[in-house]
Structure formats: structure tokens, C-alpha cells
């Protein structure tokens, strides 16, 4: 793999709570257009690492660079404005807004804060973006439903829609498939694949379902006890006996 300048560089990144390390010394370069999947036992620190990268938790050790600029101290909104978008492991939406309103809100936010401070203007419809995104995520027929009334799978899709309409360059996905019924999985996988391969976005994703990852990921990062245990191509990682023992077990 040729190595252009990394989009995201983690350097000794760590986070501890009252002295207890949750994430320790994670160093990692992610190249433009790369797809890195994170696996690891429950409680390994995958979500915590995503929280560090997106700025929800402040890093207690190490540094974080996006496009060569140090973003370790930036708050959440500033990082988001630099093109960093994420979804949450537990759905985090606006329960009282409809599906279409979600996407519209996200589309407007993507246009930068200045676009949102125009109190004297009428809010734009962002019609094309909204329709396209709903179409892509298969939510078009539920555009007028309140988010609170969607089923679990619907909420996961909406999370993705809100993320995608902002066209972030670096995407963090935290278990996007959890709870999605078997029937819907292929469509979602296809969606993520197109975002990655056709639009060339850089993707970091946590997922427990190996069969999903194997077709998508360029590299597999294995986390264990807050540290990066292994980082390699999927095949190499799957062959690793420690990973087998600690994580996969006799897969179901």
C-alpha cells in the first residue's frame, strides 16, 4: 500500500478515569480512503476510542492529528466542522422531529455555522440532498414519521442518513448493524460500501459481526483492555490465535 500523508493520526492516545486507564497508548495512522474496522471484546475500549477521536471525551494522553493539524484540544463542534462525523452505539436522535427534518437539519449544519445564524432568512429545503439521502438509506417512505416512532432498525438507518447528508470526510460508525434484522443487513452493508468505495470516504467502524467486516475492511484493528492488540489485514488478523481465543471463540 502506498502511503500518502495520513488523514488521521493517533499518537499515544489515552484516556483514564480517576486514574484507571480505559484507553492506553493507541497509535495509528489512517490513510485517505482507507477502511479500518475495530473489533474486540466488550469493554475493550472501542467506543471510548471513538469518543476520544470525535471529542466527546478529552484525551488525557497523547495527541490526535487530522490532516496534519493538531485537534487534540478542539471541542466536538469544531472537529465536526473539519469533516469528522459519527454515529452512536445507542441511537442518538431528535425524537420529536420527523425523518425528513433530521436530514434537513443535518444538511443545513453541514453548510457551516454561518448558514445557521441567518435568522432573517427562511430555512432552506435542501430538497435534492434530502431526497437523495433518504432514497439511499431506504427511508424515503417514512420521511414524515417521527424519529421516536421508528423501529430499532429504522433508527439505525436514520443515524446513517443524518451522518451521510453532511458528507463528512472521515466517518466513525459504532456498531451500525447491531439489532438490524438479517434481511436489512445486505442493504446497509451495500450503503456503507458505496460511501467508502464510490465516494472514497475514510471510514472507521466498530462491528462485532466478522462476516460483515471481512468484505469491507482494508485493515482490522483489534482492541483489548484499552490497547491496540493487533492491526493488520483481515486475513492476517483472523488467522491470529490470540485473537481467536480472546475474541472470536467458536463463532456463531
Amino acid at each position: 500500500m502506498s502511503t500518502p500523508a495520513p488523514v488521521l493520526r493517533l499518537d499515544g492516545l489515552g484516556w483514564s478515569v480517576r486514574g484507571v486507564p480505559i484507553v492506553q497508548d493507541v497509535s495509528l495512522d489512517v490513510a485517505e480512503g482507507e477502511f479500518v474496522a475495530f473489533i474486540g471484546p466488550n469493554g475493550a475500549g472501542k467506543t471510548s476510542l471513538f469518543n476520544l477521536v470525535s471529542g466527546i471525551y478529552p484525551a488525557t494522553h497523547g495527541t490526535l492529528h487530522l490532516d496534519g493539524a493538531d485537534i487534540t484540544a478542539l471541542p466536538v463542534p469544531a472537529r465536526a466542522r473539519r469533516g469528522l462525523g459519527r454515529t452512536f452505539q445507542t441511537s442518538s436522535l431528535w425524537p420529536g422531529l420527523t425523518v425528513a427534518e433530521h436530514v434537513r437539519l443535518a444538511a443545513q449544519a453541514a453548510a457551516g455555522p454561518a448558514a445557521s445564524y441567518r435568522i432573517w432568512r427562511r430555512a432552506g429545503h435542501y430538497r435534492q440532498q434530502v431526497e437523495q439521502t433518504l432514497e439511499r438509506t431506504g427511508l424515503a417512505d417514512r420521511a414524515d414519521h417521527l424519529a421516536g416512532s421508528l423501529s430499532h432498525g429504522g433508527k439505525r438507518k436514520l443515524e446513517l442518513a443524518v451522518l451521510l447528508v453532511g458528507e463528512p470526510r472521515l466517518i466513525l460508525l459504532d456498531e451500525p448493524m447491531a439489532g438490524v434484522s438479517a434481511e436489512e443487513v445486505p442493504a446497509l452493508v451495500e450503503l456503507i460500501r458505496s460511501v467508502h468505495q464510490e465516494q472514497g470516504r475514510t471510514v472507521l467502524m466498530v462491528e462485532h459481526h466478522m462476516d460483515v467486516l471481512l468484505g469491507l475492511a482494508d485493515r482490522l484493528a483489534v482492541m483489548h483492555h484499552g490497547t491496540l492488540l493487533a492491526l493488520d489485514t483481515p486475513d492476517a488478523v483472523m488467522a491470529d490465535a490470540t485473537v481467536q481465543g480472546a475474541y472470536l471463540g467458536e463463532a456463531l
Partner: protein
Amino acid sequence: MTEPLLQVRELRVVIDGLHILHGVDLDVAATGVTALLGRNGAGKTTTVKAVMGLVPRTGAVTFDGADIAGLPTHLVVRRGIGYAPEDRGIFAGLSVAENLRLAERDGDPAYDLVHELFPELKQRHRQPAGTLSGGQQQMVAIARTLLNGNRLIIADEPTKGLAPKIVTEVADVLARAAETVPVLLVEQNLALVRRVAGHCAVLADGRTAHQGDARALLADEDAARRLLGVGSHRPDTHGGTPR
């Protein structure tokens, strides 16, 4: 099938004027695991919530011969039904130990069993449950149903978000628990269903679309595709097609 332990007939749920269940029939066998299947939004979660009395419902619900359709939730539970909800229902501000302590109902809570299954929880018993990882929270939720001598356990997608190894372990736990206590299992992971479930019911659009033997259903490609939207030739967890 012998006399079912839990019998649901014509269950209907309306929330905010929205008809969510239009007549669900469901029999939970007195032994083993009964699986409740269906696509996203089919109404599985709503069905178990209705059984628990967590949403307003009409219809008949009989547990062990007694009508429980009108009972408030806490009395349903006291009849011996343990419930692990879909969103886990963890008390984020309480410690792990307090979460478990709340679930104690009878004099002799089975902490041995719980700690044997999830040693993790013993180590973390003073940690606020809200800071547990997703999977650890799921463990707490399951542990709470195992603590008491329940006569039925209802678990709504208990393996969601668990690492593969733990999924296997939970499957073992459920299978073991099912030896003594019948289990109603809502699950998307068909491989797991195949492994543990005997009987199954499939919901579609708020109605019961099928009831019968689980393995037979999963073996029948047409039926599985029609009811669940997946062919049975790929018994894997998910239909992701690696290219």
C-alpha cells in the same frame, strides 16, 4: 406441544392512536427456548412489552393458567417472569451491584450462577452501570433475570452488540437456563436461534404470521425467505456478501 406456559391470544396494542399490533397469537412452551422472530418493526418488542404490561393492550394473556392481561407490570413480574428489555434497562447512575440488588425478589438470589457466567460483573460491582461498555450492560440485564427463581425468562435481543465469543457464551447460558426455566427469546441472530430454539413464532406487520418448530422453519428455504426475508442456505449471522 404440551400445554403452553404462556398463551397470548388476539393481542392488540394502540399507542397514540397508532395501531401497532393487530392480533398477535403466541404460545410459549413450558420447556426450552421459544423464539420470537420477525423483521425490524414487525412488533416483537411491542409484543413482549405488552405481555409485561408496559404498554396498554387488549386481548388475552394467560400465564400458567392464570389470566395476567389486566395486571400491572410489577405483579406480572412477581408471578415469576424475568425480563431483559431490548434497550437493556440499565440504571446508569447506580452501580452494578445496586442494579443487581434491585432485581432481588426472593430470599436467596443466585449470585453464584451470575458470577460464574459473568465474572466481569463481579470485578466491576462498584462501577456506575452507565459507564459499562455496551456488552457489559447487556450482561447486567441478563444477570438480573437469572438472579431470581423465575418460571419464565423473556429476553429481547440479548446478544445485540456482544462480541462473537460472548454471543456463544450467552447462547450457552440461555441453553443452560432453558433446561430449568423456559425462555422466550427475541432474536435476529438466526444461527443462535437454530442452535437453541425449539418452538418459534414469526411476526409480520403486527400479526402472527407463523408458529411452529424453529428448525423446521429455518430448514424450509421458501418459508424462511417469505417470513424472514433471508434464504436458509446462509445460516450465518448476517447476509453480508463478501466480495
